[in-house]
């Protein structure tokens, strides 16, 4: 199941267009022998992070940069096993709620301070006051922390909690330096201080963020001295920049450029699953979708295969459940709602809304979402439902979604803890509204009960069974039509060495280096 790292086989494209040939890869030849390592490389970022304070709203690129600057107590390795990061070892007491972490000694922050359990405590306490990430500490007792000595940190969960280790690996749980945060105050987000292999150097607004090797790093020192994260918002520009060699690494190649990068003379593509799911979410608390039959009808009216084929041809097809392939407890046997407009009409009639109704549909403006929206509009039109399209920019969209203002939406989320139970909890637990993964606002007491039970079930086998069962309950409620599981497409110059794909997307760039390319 864990074939996360594989290079896409080259698929010859049908006759290339004139322009394609004209703009192709440039004049550089791939070098035959492993050349000299360069002392800097450039990574393209799709948008500028708001801040590099891990407790602020996280976007993909902020997390990637933060992963170079900070460490957490624990982390996932490439097989998704939990391993120690700043914690050398850890154990849970017999009561099931007391966790003791033994920290590495002699770890230095970029400002020269030494890491102690006080910094860990400080970092945890900070999360409680940050609404964007507070969900990460929902099961951790704020009063239960102890720091018996400089290198021991104790926390208590409110109940025996199954997902604590996975939670501590999340990008929200970066360990910060108390002194730096306190001294810099509001400026901290633009002057982050961590313990990672790279230290923050400069931030040119709208242009780039630069980090440099931290020589006192406790682990293996980084190979490349400088990494420049360049802001390139336009999807196709990032591809062109990679082909021309202006950047060396792009972590989000758009779907329509995947073949081009995989076939490129100077480029190669690494792809893998990141536990992400893309879906059409129905607002279960909205008047017209209160009736389960209406929601089921809309799922029957949605031709998932048509959307996936046109918009996400490279993604992994979904099998009804939002749980991504490879996750323990994934239920692949659900009947779901195969495309059937007649059945949809019947259900709508049963529910007494056969005359149709209007649905406000919001989504992040962009090519893929626009296509999905237009296809969906035509599909739902066939059963008499009018879809009003409302493309929005990302800030307005998050605000609207957090307030549950829409009737339906197109959204994508990651089950970033790589635990189906935790993912489903974030997606469908009635109490997790306002959390960035919950876009359907499902409110089913039976589902809630089971999800709570899963969170506190520490026996992995029993938990897997419960996860398996809850998916049937959830999909019976039809809160969403799952389109597909999108993959990460990382494009890079062929002169790359040491890149390792991680399902978390938090790639370790300290081991990456590029050969000097001939002019």
């Amino acid at each position, binding site marked *: 199941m864990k074939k996360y790292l594989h290079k896409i086989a080259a698929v010859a494209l049908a006759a290339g267009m004139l322009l394609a040939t004209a703009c192709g890869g440039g004049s550089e030849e791939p070098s035959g022998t492993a050349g000299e390592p360069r002392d800097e490389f450039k990574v393209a970022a799709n948008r500028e992070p708001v801040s590099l304070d891990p407790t602020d709203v996280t976007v993909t690129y902020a997390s990637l940069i933060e992963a170079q600057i900070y460490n957490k107590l624990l982390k996932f390795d490439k097989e998704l096993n939990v391993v120690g990061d700043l914690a050398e070892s850890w154990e849970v007491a017999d009561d099931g709620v007391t966790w003791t972490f033994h920290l590495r000694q002699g770890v230095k922050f970029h400002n020269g301070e030494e890491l102690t359990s006080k910094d860990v405590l400080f970092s945890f306490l900070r999360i409680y006051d940050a609404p964007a990430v507070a969900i990460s500490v929902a099961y951790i007792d704020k009063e239960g922390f102890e720091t018996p000595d400089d290198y021991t940190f104790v926390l208590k969960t409110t109940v025996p909690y199954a997902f604590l280790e996975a939670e501590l690996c999340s990008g929200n749980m970066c360990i910060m330096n108390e002194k730096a945060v306190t001294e810099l105050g509001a400026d901290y987000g633009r002057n982050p201080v961590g313990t990672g292999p790279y230290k923050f150097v400069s931030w040119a607004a709208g242009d780039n963020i630069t980090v440099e090797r931290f020589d006192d790093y406790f682990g293996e020192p980084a190979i490349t001295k400088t990494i420049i994260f360049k802001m390139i918002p336009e999807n196709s520009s990032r591809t062109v920049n990679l082909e021309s060699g202006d950047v060396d690494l792009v972590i989000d190649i758009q779907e329509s450029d995947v073949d081009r990068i995989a076939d490129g003379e100077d480029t190669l593509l690494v792809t893998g699953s990141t536990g992400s799911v893309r879906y059409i979410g129905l607002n279960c608390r909205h008047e017209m979708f209160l009736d389960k039959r209406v929601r089921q009808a809309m799922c029957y009216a949605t031709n998932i295969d048509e959307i996936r084929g046109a918009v996400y041809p490279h993604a992994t097809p979904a099998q009804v459940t939002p749980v991504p392939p490879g996750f323990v407890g994934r239920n692949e046997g659900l009947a779901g709602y195969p495309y059937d407009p007649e059945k949809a009409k019947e259900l709508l009639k049963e529910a007494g809304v056969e005359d149709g109704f209007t649905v406000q549909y919001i989504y992040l403006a962009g090519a893929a979402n626009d*296509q999905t929206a237009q296809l969906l509009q035509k599909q739902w039109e066939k059963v008499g439902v009018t879809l009003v399209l409302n493309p929005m920019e990302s800030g307005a969209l998050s605000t609207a979604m957090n307030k549950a203002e829409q009737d339906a939406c197109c959204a994508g989320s990651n089950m970033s803890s790589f635990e189906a139970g935790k993912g489903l909890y974030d997606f469908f637990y009635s109490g997790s509204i306002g959390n960035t993964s919950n876009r359907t606002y499902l409110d089913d007491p039976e589902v809630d009960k089971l999800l709570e039970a899963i969170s506190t079930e520490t026996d992995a086998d029993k938990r897997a069974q419960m996860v398996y069962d809850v998916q049937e309950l959830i999909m019976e409620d039809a809160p969403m039509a799952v389109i597909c599981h999108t993959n990460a497409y990382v494009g890079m110059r062929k002169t790359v060495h040491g890149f390792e794909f991680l399902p978390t997307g938090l790639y370790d760039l300290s081991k990456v280096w590029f050969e000097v390319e001939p002019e």
Partner: protein
Amino acid sequence: MTQNNAAASAPVQETYKKRGQGKEIWRRFRRSKSAMLGLFILLTLIFMAVFAGVLTPYDPTEPDVPIRLMKPFVDSAHILGTDELGRDIFTRLCFGARISLAVGLIAVSISLIGGITLGSLAGYYGGTLDNVIMRFIDILMAIPSILLNISIVAAMGQGLQNVMIAIGISSMPGYCRIMRASILSLKDQEFIEASRAAGASDFHIIVHHIIPNCLAPLIVQATLRVGGSILACASLSFIGVGIVPPTPEWGAMLSTGRDFLRDAPHLTTIPGITIMLAVLCMNFIGDGLRDALDPKLKN
């Protein structure tokens, strides 16, 4: 519109005279090759817009995914190819022509009416009113029009109607200034004084005597601005603040085509060329009209 009313209620003799003028203008307009080319393109676009439903058997918004991204001039059923959802591009261009021409016409009408009204008031009455109106117009002119358009659409919400209003407002200052300048040069002439002496009201004087005499520069400006409005609408759609999908607006087509630029360049080039032709034809016509209407070039 006011000038139509003016023409309709004008005495018989004047109507006769105007027809003679029209013939003269047409004779001079015909002499310009570029103007005639512009007129030809415009008529083609109008034909496409009017008969969009008859010219092609396809629905401009109905996806046909299996044939997506078909190249142009390959299949006679889809002469200009298909877009990212398999919709016929020629069909979308035809239906898009309806939108673009409507935007051009309505946006210009809005700015024409607004500009004429404000310009007349400012020019005819002068004084404080003139000052207030013209300073307001100065402020409008000081803001880059694309920025003004974006702010207006953002404030009023997306949609075709609001785009037209936004473009109408942002191109108002030009008409207003032309109108005011013409009035300043007219209002002290004898025939205006005669009319006033005969007891005509201000409204009568402006509508029946001043506006008909200012029409020439306004018509030229309006024609030129139709092209500008089409372009402004396309720009707004391109940056995603104008028209909501799946409306087949040219600028929106151009914008969606961006992501397929390298594999399917016809998605951007075809609407791009169409926009260019539309703007160019209005500019040709505008230039031709300017020469035709210029009394100094009468013979």
